[in-house]
């Protein structure tokens, strides 16, 4: 059994991950709907997960994939907390536009 990376090349995975990661960054910066911003962060985490798996294959090592589990757990926890915060903001403000959240400044 050959390493599948022989055909694709680890670089391409890296580039894909980087681009995906950057899209996530872009989303965080571009959108002001907090939910979409969260989603963008999920994209970032996913990009990393993908790279983990690719590296796991690259090293032929299970640890990378195990790490993805943790990363997922973290993502889940973050989303839960994030959404809870969002909900309470929505309750108070009736909106989740992060541009409205500029009370703290200066």
């Amino acid at each position, binding site marked *: *059994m*050959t*390493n*599948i990376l022989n*055909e*694709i*090349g680890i*670089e*391409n995975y890296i*580039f*894909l991950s*980087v*681009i*995906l*990661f*950057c*899209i996530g960054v*872009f989303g965080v*910066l*571009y*959108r*002001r*709907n907090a*939910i*979409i911003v*969260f*989603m*963008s962060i*999920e994209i970032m985490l*996913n990009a990393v*997960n993908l790279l983990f*798996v*690719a590296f*796991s*294959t*690259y090293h*032929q*090592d*299970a*640890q990378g*994939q*195990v790490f*993805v*589990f*943790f990363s*997922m*757990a*973290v*993502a*889940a*926890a*973050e989303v*839960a*907390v994030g*959404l*809870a915060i*969002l*909900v309470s903001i929505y309750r108070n403000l009736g909106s*989740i*536009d992060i541009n409205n959240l500029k009370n703290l400044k200066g």
Partner: protein
Amino acid sequence: MIHIPDFAHASTVQIIFCFLAFITVITAFLAIFSRNPIHSALYLVISFFSIAGHYLLLNSQFLAIVHVIVYSGAIMILFLFTIMLMNLNKQNEVHKPRITRLGAIVSFCLICIVLILVFINSKPIAGEYIATGEDYQSIKVLGRVLLNEYMVPFEFASILLLTAMIGVVLLSKKEKTEK
């Protein structure tokens, strides 16, 4: 060096990779650009599925399944649920100030270019990718690694989740004093 896929002589795997990559990136973009949050969420689900496809391509079936279950099944449902809860599906964002968009695009381009350039600049990996032939990503192996070597982090992840749980309860619980 960046390998421009040679579509004429590309192997199946390469074509699949390119296809999946294309889907992933496009849907991710669409998820961000889409005005309707529901659409965003759905695009994101597709994106996640395509990532799962990547996992399958890399022959990590278990992870792919877990990925689908956790992300598409749990996280995105949570998102959708919240969107529904807040009744955001119709909400259209007010036109964003130009400066914000410009900033976003600039930083996107910047970080993209910088990171890609960094990786391009690096030496290409010489030689063959190792293939030990050993099983390293079946459920069995993963389970062993996870519960032997990574037992502590595994347990600790439970603390993480517990913390998140307490946190969410804390944030959502109504107190008696509140009206």
